[in-house]
């Protein structure tokens, strides 16, 4: 046994392209940016790269622009993720009932997910513009128009509303798919016990959907911490920094200010934050066994 030569399985050859791409575009940047975090690195002047120790990390704590971006990002995550999840869950629960043209309904829900974020952002930029669809609609009710994206008070909420709209369908479909795997017998039992719609949801649907909800929360949290393209297209962080998010700030720091070291630190901050939030979400929604979960409490 010990003398047998190691022969890689042919499967390894097929994994190779993926592994190579993963190493080149994920592992390498991940490690490289960790190294950058300790350097003063400017791509225009690589020769003058200096080791600065923890200086870049220390800057995080006294940088008001970072604090603003952190606050905006937290508002974005806390304001969108629960709303999106709750609405997606409600939609998925609705789909259990008899809906005419259910297939078309599902397809319509999923539609925003196949559009590029840039396309959605450009459309909403028009939608929110003065003279755009939203203001025209409000005008019909006698409400005066508003520059939604040029007012520091409404710019971030406007982008958040768009994000909820764009994300909800995808997660509703994911939750609906998970819901269809709940055996009908459980619903029949609930019905026999005389459980109403809320009790059925509370004691059958919700507990059995917990793993799927955890997935939705984690994916959506990670995605929301990285909110960037919407901001870049719609407001570039303005007005007055009211929509400046962590990744927007990271992008500016690296590509406009050429401060790659500090930008790497910001990247790791985003990584840590989304990691912590995801772990908390997963802990809270740790799956229970089907029987246990279905038992009326």
């Amino acid at each position, binding site marked *: 046994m010990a003398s047998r030569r190691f022969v890689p399985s*042919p499967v390894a*050859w097929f994994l*190779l392209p993926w592994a190579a791409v993963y190493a080149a575009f994920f592992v390498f940047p991940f490690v490289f940016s960790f190294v950058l975090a300790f350097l003063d690195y*400017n*791509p*225009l*002047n*690589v020769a*003058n790269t200096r080791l600065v120790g923890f200086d870049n990390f220390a800057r995080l704590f006294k940088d008001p622009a970072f604090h603003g971006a952190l606050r905006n990002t937290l508002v974005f995550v806390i304001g969108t993720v629960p709303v999106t999840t709750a609405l997606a869950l409600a939609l998925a629960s609705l789909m259990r009932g008899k809906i005419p043209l259910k297939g078309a309904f599902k397809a319509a829900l999923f539609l925003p997910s196949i559009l590029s974020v840039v396309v959605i952002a450009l459309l909403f930029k028009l939608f929110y*513009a*003065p*003279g755009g669809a939203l203001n025209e609609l409000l005008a019909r009710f006698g409400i005066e128009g508003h*520059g939604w*994206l*040029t007012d*520091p008070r409404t*710019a971030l909420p406007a982008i958040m509303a768009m994000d909820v709209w764009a994300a909800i369908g995808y997660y509703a479909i994911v939750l609906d798919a998970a819901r269809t795997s709940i055996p009908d017998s459980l619903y029949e039992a609930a019905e026999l016990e005389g459980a109403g719609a809320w009790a059925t949801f509370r004691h059958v649907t919700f507990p059995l959907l917990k793993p799927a909800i955890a997935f939705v929360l984690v994916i959506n949290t990670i995605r929301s911490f990285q909110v960037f393209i919407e901001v870049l297209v719609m*407001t*570039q962080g*303005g*007005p*007055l*920094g009211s929509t400046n998010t962590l990744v927007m700030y990271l992008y500016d720091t690296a*590509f*406009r*200010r*050429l401060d790659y070291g500090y930008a790497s630190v910001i990247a790791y901050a985003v990584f840590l934050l989304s990691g912590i939030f995801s772990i908390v979400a997963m802990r809270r929604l740790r799956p229970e066994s089907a029987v246990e979960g279905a038992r009326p409490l």
Partner: protein
Amino acid sequence: MRGARRVAVVVASAALVALACGKKDTSDRIVVRFWQFWDLAVIEPQVAAFEAQHPGVDVEVEQLTWATGLEKIQAALASGTQPDLCELGSTWLPRFSYDGVLEDITTVYEAERDSFLMWESALWNGRAYGLPWVQGSRVLFINRDLFRRAGLDPDRPPQTWDELLTASQKIGELGTGIYGFGQNIGERYVLYKKFMAFAWGNGGDVFDETGTVVLNSPAVLEALEFYLKLAPYSLQEKQEILDQYFKTGRLGMQVSGAWNLKNYKLEAPDLDYGVALVPKPAADHGSHASFAGAEMLVVFKASRRKEIAIEFARFLQAYPQAKQLSLAAGSVFPAARAAMNDPTFMSDPRVRVFVEQSLTSRTTPAHPGWIEMEEAIDRAVEESLYGRRAPRWCLDDAAKEVQQIAARFQKK
């Protein structure tokens, strides 16, 4: 069987790798790599002309986009795959000069100095690092119809701040949904260009000759206070919305660039508009200043084809070529002074204004930290427009911030 399959996979991978690495043999030709932002259809005739004059030289042109070009150039410099010749916006260039990646072309500058405008951004520590190629100033656009409706003379656009304010007010009072003046807000790159026109016109600036920050001087404060006076009659929006309002006849005046000449012809052929120099503070005071930006040509220090690259840059920059490019692009003018005497430009009353404006226009300070400094100016103007704080304090803070940015670049 298993072995055969493995061989097949290896052969296929090797073939792919060979395919990816395959390059035509160019050993006996001089290849000049040129990165630029124009449509290839616009630039290629000039490349062909240069190649025809220089047998043995191949120019490889690549088109960058304004959205991602700067990142691509940075990445290329970091990995040593930069082109020989490159186009850079005048507000970017100082950072490249400061970081020492550009070839010093002071000798070319000394020979050409008097024939071209727009050198400012290329100069750093008394040396020159770029060649002005094409340029564009912002001018005042007026809607002649709205002028008539407001009882103003469309053939006499506002010359002074007072006239600008009166015209804005009269047009702004025509009815709801019609605005006198357009003020940029909520986006990058544009706000400071519009505001600094007023500050420069009033004798204000970001730095004085000694390099001291004077952004909070009385001259700049006065300009900001005047700018705020326009606010009640102004539409405060992003540039594309301002353009949309102007095109549809709902905006009386705005300060904007030459690309509109082309756009309005296509998108609003019936729009009756005129252009004028940006108004100055008073008939007996100040100047018709405005923002001017330029496209600059730079040669990278690491290039192995510097001589031919500089020659190519001078060829592109020369008046006949720059004129051809300007006419094809329809949004810029040659940086060469010869344009001032060319009837092609000077016989069109609108185009003439652009060329005349460029004589009193200003460029942003040639400072490597400019991109951060412009954000400080944007913030000061926006905070004042939103009524967050008194203009004086906004400018004090902006001046302090500019000072800190400048200090950071001095330290290194």
